[in-house]
């Protein structure tokens, strides 16, 4: 009896060891490619900045202090780094608005595709992914070309005589939002479509049958059932939007910075790698907190129905 049990246990141990061995490549990649760089960033945030970028191997909290405080160069007193705080707020706001706008545009788009005949759906999805083929930089410059003062829209408006002088669209928050919605829309549409494709449209008919108007069918039946897609799409848009760099730097100009630009500044012209590292970690923490809040909210709403 005990012998048999022992053999089974040994067999199980062997199996467990084998599984670990098989998953070793994946674990190594996670450790080296994901955790490793993060640890370096974390370490750098606690070091002193070097004179020409890089870091000096001296422990220092200056980087972290610099995230929220700024030192007056004349009297050396500290005050709240209002510029940083406002960039944080702006980034979160712009990302939130981007997420909401992509959801507003993406939801009908995904619904439209999901209700097409099966054969044409692939074509529509394919068209949604076409922007991915082109470099982000080029796509962003294309938008710049459309909205700048001498661009397509202003040119047409001026020519038609509707306006006397060009409307300033470039280098505004509106320009950043336009760019970000355009860039991140596929990331919203694809997970939404994946949920909607699984939606049983007979449930929609059942809703109509039970006196629900189209709006109520949307609110009471479709949205609750495609909620996983809404959550996935929102996360996929919100996170990269928060760290967006190319779009705000081109369409927002120098003054309308987002977090990504601020971080870039520290590693580039600012030559303050510890501050850049501390800002990066802060960005990550914001994302994590936002995710936790969002997922927990969405989760509790889902279980309330049960």
């Amino acid at each position: 009896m005990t012998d048999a049990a022992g053999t089974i246990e040994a067999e199980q141990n062997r199996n467990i060891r084998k599984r670990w061995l098989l998953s070793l490549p994946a674990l190594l990649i996670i450790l080296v490619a994901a955790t490793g760089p993060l640890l370096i960033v974390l370490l750098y945030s606690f070091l002193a900045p070097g004179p020409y970028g890089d870091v000096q191997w001296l422990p220092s909290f200056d980087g972290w202090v610099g995230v929220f405080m700024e030192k007056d160069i004349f009297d050396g007193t500290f005050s709240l780094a209002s510029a940083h705080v406002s960039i944080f707020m702006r980034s979160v706001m712009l990302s939130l608005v981007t997420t909401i706008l992509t959801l507003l545009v993406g939801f009908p788009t995904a619904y439209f595709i999901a209700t097409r005949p099966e054969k044409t759906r692939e074509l529509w999805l394919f068209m949604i992914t076409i922007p991915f083929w082109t470099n982000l930089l080029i796509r962003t410059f294309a938008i710049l070309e459309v909205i700048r003062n001498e661009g397509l829209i202003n040119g047409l408006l001026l020519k038609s005589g509707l306006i006397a002088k060009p409307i300033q669209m470039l280098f505004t928050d509106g320009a950043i939002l336009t760019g970000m919605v355009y860039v991140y829309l596929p990331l919203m549409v694809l997970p939404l479509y994946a949920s909607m494709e699984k939606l049983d449209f007979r449930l929609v008919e059942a809703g109509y049958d039970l006196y629900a108007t189209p709006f109520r069918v949307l609110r009471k039946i479709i949205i609750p059932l495609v909620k996983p897609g809404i959550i996935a799409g929102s996360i996929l848009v919100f996170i990269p939007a928060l760290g967006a760099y190319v779009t705000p730097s081109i369409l927002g100009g120098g003054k309308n910075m987002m977090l990504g630009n601020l971080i870039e500044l520290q590693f580039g012209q600012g030559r303050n790698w510890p501050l850049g590292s501390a800002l990066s970690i802060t960005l990550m923490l914001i994302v994590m907190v936002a995710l936790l809040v969002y997922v927990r909210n969405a989760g509790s709403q889902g279980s309330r129905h049960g």
Partner: protein
Amino acid sequence: MAELNAVEIRQVSKIFGFGEFAFAAVDNTSVSIRQNEFFTLLGPSGCGKTTLLRLIAGFEYPTSGEILLNGEDIAAMPPFKRPINTVFQSYALFPHMTVAENIGFGLMMLGKPKREINERVDAMLKLVRMEALAGRRTSQISGGQQQRVALARALAPQPKVLLLDEPLSALDYKLRKDMQIELKRLQAETGITFIFVTHDQEEALTMSDRIAVMSSGKILQVGNPREIYDAPADRFVADFIGETNFLKGRIGSVANGIADVDTPVAGRISATVPQDFHAEGEVTVVLRPEHATLCPPDRADASQMTGTLENVVYFGTDTHYHVRLSDGETLFTLREQNKPLQVARFAAGDRVGIALEANAARVLRN
């Protein structure tokens, strides 16, 4: 004028597709469904019965024609405004709601006060005997229970008409039998007009007040189960409802609704004729399998029909015999009820005679 019909379909067509791909799922069909009736649309799959039901529900709009509900044309009214509810074939229960929430959904959408909704949901749960499972998710209950919830959900808003789209097809035999009785009970208790779609002729015969037999988008015959079974309007109806033997023959003299028909395989048989039926020459005679019995081949008085017994199939309640008639072509089916401790009288390969009961044969119109 007498009481308004619950539903009246007037020359309704529904055409899907365009040009050469156009296909009439419902083809210029008219039918009236009375108040408080258990009305069944019966036909093979693809005959248009489900499309007709969806037209009444409002999920499809007719290409032409009128649909009247209590005398009011509703053909263009959206489904959420029609006081008609549907029990779907797949039940289509909302997976993100509990049993009680599903049942209360229609009432909630109608804007009823919460107290009234709760009372009504409780009453419905009781009606379908599901009180104990009110708080369950619909994925946590069995197929038969889902069926009951679907029924309760559709009945809760007290519709004028209840549509049932093959609601029993997913249930196993015993449960289906139970639900057939249950449906009849519910219909009697609620007094709501039921329009039931099925391809199962037995289901149609046992449950319906009246049946409409459909084929290729057209209604071939409307009548009560007995009329449909005993006096099928044409060959399709006769063939679709129950098992039927068809014999060709020449019609002779007709008197008092009985005709003499000369058949090559059975000699002269007397057959009932439909009212106002005048035909000369070739006709088809139908014979139900249970209206004939096997006898020894030399019993000349019983019938002139003889043949070779090819097959004996035991069904428990009765036994089916397939007899190859003397012309070598026609396969005649007959069915005898089994008696206690009965010994098989005939075996496959025997030569047998077939005795017909009085009025067993009927001349088909066409």
